[in-house]
């Protein structure tokens, strides 16, 4: 068969199936949308990640305080801390978020995020869902928000990494082993996009990325001398190799890695030298580096970062994972989050950055109020769980029980500041009665992601190919941006 005949027969095959034509009709290309992307209202994003599952009633959607009384009915428990007013009518935060309450007029609160799927009651798997937009297991290596955004939009500044992930604490110290850590790495990571779109992970906000500086014992001059030799000898490599675009591409990446060493991003970490004492104090909270992470995030955005994720530590049965009435769980996290987060939003606003920078505050799920400690219901049996969460047949006898807040993905809150989102706005509502599920304007994780993408000018059905199959940035491309949230 000659070439033309071959082509003809191949084309014939394609025609018969009609697939080829259908594919063309779709009019997409990887990472693009031929029919146009939405107009962006933000250029950069800071995701403030509060893993552990925030108790909505104690954080951003407070209810009347019902103090503990032995023998009280669980269904009568409305709130375990007094609510405080915010700068927006009808929005009440829990005590301990006084500073956040003072900036609510700068943001949009979504009170009606709800998920009910397999494993949505499970911390790490629901975190996977929140960060990738796909329920676990997704059937492919799902990329996280940061990798998606930095892939579609590319870097904002050529020498500042597109996705920087700050202060993520590993789970190892909680007996979870390397596999748990690696699983967490995975859903904060690039998925099938590969290392090219992996986050630059910064463990400690006070130290810049290790690999942006020469290895210990080497000076930058030596690095450059070595690199010069490298360029010389690679230039002498066998000609056939040098002809390959791969060769060229590889050397270009080496070059941009070297440029990255002079990245303004490095400077962002030298905040102690360059920020005023007043600013440092504004973010500083004793006992946590979360404040510094927020400050570094602001400095990175100023220097051209596209996507920065600031992580609050995740410690099972501690901090935000509120399973007990105790200062560590009920007051410490709020006291550590309140000040720096408010400082970050105000700081961005004062510097005129908030208009084009979107700050998103989110957690994997909300929590029920009272539960029976020690009662664990299989994750597959959601109906039973929910009936148990109504608390009608349950009396609260101990403080332990009063403070036992179960995992509850049917009500979750997300906060948005800037980046084209409305100011001083609350969307959706959760029921007043237990189990207080989201009941009004209920939105899905896909919708939340679609809204974030919309703000950045990314259509929710943009795709990249994995194993020849289009994988879209929201699940099956079906995320719908929540128009009401935008200005």
């Amino acid at each position: 068969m000659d070439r033309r005949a071959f082509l003809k027969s191949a084309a014939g095959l394609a025609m018969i199936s009609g697939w080829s034509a259908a594919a063309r009709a779709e009019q997409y290309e990887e990472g693009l949308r031929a029919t146009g992307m939405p107009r962006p209202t933000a250029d950069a994003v800071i995701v403030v990640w509060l893993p552990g599952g925030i108790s909505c009633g104690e954080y951003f959607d407070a209810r009347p305080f019902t103090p503990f009384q032995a023998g009280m009915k669980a269904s009568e428990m409305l709130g375990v801390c007094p609510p405080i007013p915010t700068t927006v009518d009808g929005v009440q935060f829990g005590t301990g978020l006084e500073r956040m309450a003072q900036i609510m007029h700068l943001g949009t609160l979504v009170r009606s995020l709800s998920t009910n799927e397999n494993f949505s009651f499970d911390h790490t798997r629901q975190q996977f869902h929140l960060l990738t937009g796909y329920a676990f297991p997704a059937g492919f290596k799902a990329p996280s928000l940061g990798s998606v955004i930095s892939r579609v939009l590319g870097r904002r500044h050529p020498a500042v990494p597109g996705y920087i992930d700050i202060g993520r604490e590993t789970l190892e110290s909680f007996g979870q082993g390397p596999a748990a850590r690696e699983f967490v790495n995975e859903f904060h990571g690039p998925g099938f996009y590969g290392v090219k779109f992996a986050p630059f992970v910064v463990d400690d906000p006070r130290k810049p990325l290790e690999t942006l500086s020469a290895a210990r014992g080497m000076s930058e001059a030596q690095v450059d001398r070595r690199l010069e030799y490298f360029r010389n000898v690679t230039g002498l490599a066998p000609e056939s190799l040098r002809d390959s675009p791969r060769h060229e591409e590889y050397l270009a990446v080496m070059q941009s890695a070297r440029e990255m060493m002079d990245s303004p991003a490095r400077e962002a970490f030298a905040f102690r030298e360059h920020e005023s004492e007043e600013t440092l104090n504004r973010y500083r909270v004793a006992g946590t580096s979360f404040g510094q992470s927020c400050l570094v995030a602001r400095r990175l955005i100023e220097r051209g970062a596209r996507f920065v994720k600031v992580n609050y530590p995740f410690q099972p049965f501690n901090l935000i994972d509120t399973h007990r009435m105790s200062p560590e769980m009920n007051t410490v996290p709020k006291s550590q989050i309140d000040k720096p987060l408010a400082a970050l939003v105000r700081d961005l606003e004062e510097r005129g950055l908030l208009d084009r920078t979107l700050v998103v505050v989110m957690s994997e799920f909300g929590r029920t109020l009272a539960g029976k400690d020690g009662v664990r219901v299989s994750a597959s049996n959601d109906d039973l769980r929910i009936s148990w969460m109504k608390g009608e047949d349950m009396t609260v006898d101990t403080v332990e029980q009063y403070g036992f807040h179960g995992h509850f993905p049917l009500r979750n809150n997300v906060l948005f500041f800037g980046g084209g989102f409305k100011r001083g706005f609350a969307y959706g509502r959760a029921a007043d009665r237990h189990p207080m599920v989201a009941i009004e304007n209920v939105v899905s994780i896909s919708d939340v992601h679609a809204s974030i993408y919309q703000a950045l000018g990314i259509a929710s059905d943009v795709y990249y190919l994995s194993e020849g199959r289009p994988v879209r940035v929201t699940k099956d491309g079906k995320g719908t941006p929540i128009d009401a949230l935008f200005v």
Partner: protein
Amino acid sequence: MPFSFSGFFDFGDLSSNAPMLHATVVHLPVALAMLGLPFILAALVLGERSVAARVLAFAAYVALAGAALLAVKTGELATRLLPGTLPERLQEAVGRHQEMAEQVVWFGAVTAAIIALGFVRARRLRLAALSVAALSGVATLLWVAQTGRLGAKLVYGDGVGAPAIVIETRMYSAQGAAAGAHATPRPETGEASSDPERGPDREALLASLPADVSYTQNVEPVFRDHCYSCHSGATPEHDLNLSSFAGVLRGGAKRGPAVIPGHPDDSPIMKHVRGEYQPRMPKGELPLSPDRVLLIEKWIAQGARESAGAPVAQERVSREAPWQRLTAELLDEPERLEQVEVRRDLRYVLTASAPEPARDNTVAPARLDRFTLFDEDALRRVTREMRVASLPPAPAPPAIGGVAHPIDAFIAGQLTAAGLEYPAEVCSDETFVRRVYLDVLGVIPSPAEIEAFVGDGGAGHRERLIDALLDQTTGYAAHWVPFWEDALCSTPNTISDPQKSKKDATLGEHGHYADWIFDSFKKNRPFDLWVSELFDARMPGHQKDYVLRWVQMEVLQSAANAAQVFLGTSMKCASCHNHFSNPEWTQSRFFELAGFFSTDDLEVVRCEKHTGRYISPKFVFDLPGMDLDAPPGLEARSARLAQLMVDPLNPRFAKTLVNRLWQRFLGEGLYEPIDDLREDRRASHPELLEWLAQDFMRNGFDVKHTMRLILTSQTYQRPFRADWVEEFAPEHPDAPRYFRSPHLRRLTAEQMLDSARKALGRAWDGDARTFRAAELSPLPLALGRAATRNEVSTKRPADPAVLQSLELMNGREFHDLVYASPVVETIGRELAAQGASRSLADRIYLGVLSRRSSDDEARTTMEYLDRARQETAFTPASNVDVPAKRVAVAARPGGAGNTVQESAAVGDVFWALFVSPEFQYNH
């Protein structure tokens, strides 16, 4: 049962039955070893008054030595009767058993001798002797127990010397069926004489039974009384449901059909009822009364009718398991039956000589010539052969002058047809040796290995090297592990939350396969058998975590994963709705496949909406001659699935694998994308793909065979030429690709790090290989080694990335690996002593890039070394405080001394060459 002395002493005709004799004698040493020990202990406790205890202990051990000797002798007699065709494994086991038994004699004798020392008067000496004797007694007991265990395993586990091998061979013919069960004598056993169903009452009992026994009228009530509590209902034990006639014929998961019409002695149900199979049935109850046992026996002997007057039940020959299939084939060919009988417990094939002429319509027992104890692999191989024989003829390689290798012929054929030139050139020996080492062993050759190959310039030296490398089984296997670990979602640890129930904790756990993959490839297990182990719960090597069965979602994922990896067929889209882009895969077709991974039919959930529609499983490809439905019961289902997946007539299984091999060695598959084989798109060389797949199957699914075929082709050995590389582009899927040049292939993290370690004189082989590392550090992660494997990956992203370059440039791990290595320090010392030279530059080039330097490269390198040794004020990693766990690999004490600068300069050169694209790609 009343105690009978005559029964107790009736050993049968022992002299003519050595195995029986052995079996009788061997228990004596066991008893004596147990008996002797308390006597020694008593002697120790009783002190001087213990004369009687000492005498008894001494006697016991002397007797033990004697009994053991007797056991050894009878054992020897018994071994002589074993067939010469016993597999090597079993021969070895028999030898070991024999050896240990001989040692038991010595144990007994020595213990007795030590006890004898205990008769001295001196108290301390006596105490010491008895203490030692006690220890020796314990050792003896353990030794006897271990010997016994080994023997028992041989007899009961493997059937060596068991009554099973002296069974009579009988023809499966109409005559045989009519003759009934008792035309042939059974070996007498001690139990037999006290068994009324065999005793003189037998005839009387038989006479009392109904003339025509049938399932509904006679047998079912017996089953109902004794069996239904376990063997009926929705989930009967072992999937054996005796509450319907069909259920009886279908049988259970473990033994297959419960009855073999006409052959009560071979019918599993009779064996269970009689206690020949353990447990004796009904389990936990008294044995069935003799009349009931005889009733079942008679029913089967009469042909196991459903109801009176119904036709004799046909033996149900299912294709559930390959060995049953084998039975079926043999039944279709009565002439072969004269030589072969397949034992109904499906563990032996007996080859017998032709039977004596039949008299009185009975069949005389045939003489046993040979038996083959065959493992399930052998049975599967036999089945596979039969199936391969029915493949359509493979396309013939086009006859093209001067092109001998079939692969090259197909490639040349396409080029010629397109009017393009068929390249004549092959790559240089240096290029070839590096390429093939990386492809077979996953590591670059050492300078000595390069010299050895290039020095062997004789004809066929490339073939010799390929063979030699394929024979390096550990390296070969090590290089395969990462690929299959990625593809099978192998995860070493459970993603566990200590607060979770076990069920939750193991979710997403697909099993850990590194060792299994390594061992299987080391042994070069046939690919189809290896894959079967993932699915078939009946196989000894079954990997039970691969097929996840929990919630519907997991079932669908299991099915989609298996389809992707082994059928090269992407069905994931079809798990929620009809495949968007591939009309081949409707959702219901996908569910038909997924049903094989589930206990029940699957409900169609369309885009998260339950439809209430259930789909029965059916294999997705029509394989002529195969049963495509799923049998009930998970085990049976898994076995059927395994068989259908690997069946030679399955149009995708072998093709997917050979396409992967092609991609692995040439850079791209003949079919692309490799995981999306579909009817509406063709391969670049469809005939070659078909030919390779058939050749692979006809050669026993031997991966090494096909690898060898590809590696020996000129197509594989072409030099890399950038302008001849045709990359598959999804937007032009049908654009021709001719494979005139291999693609550049990025080294995997494992290839890169193992090779670097080898070049640096560090430990890189065996346990030091990167794939063995349980914990991931930033370097391998940046190079693309998978952090977790929750999802299938058959191709790692190979794009260079800034993060990766930074890790290589400034990461501590790679820095320490290179600069503090033995080779860098050695060459550094030479540089200090002799200055830079061409030979020094060549050594570095040969070590890293597997070739000598060009003049320009040598000059550049020498200049750099001379300049750098003057300028560097450098602290090599070995002199700074490296974290404790890295010390072992990073630090090398001494030697560096005043050659620090030189080592750093040499390290720079190594670094630059490692990081160069020439090293980072296989070309």
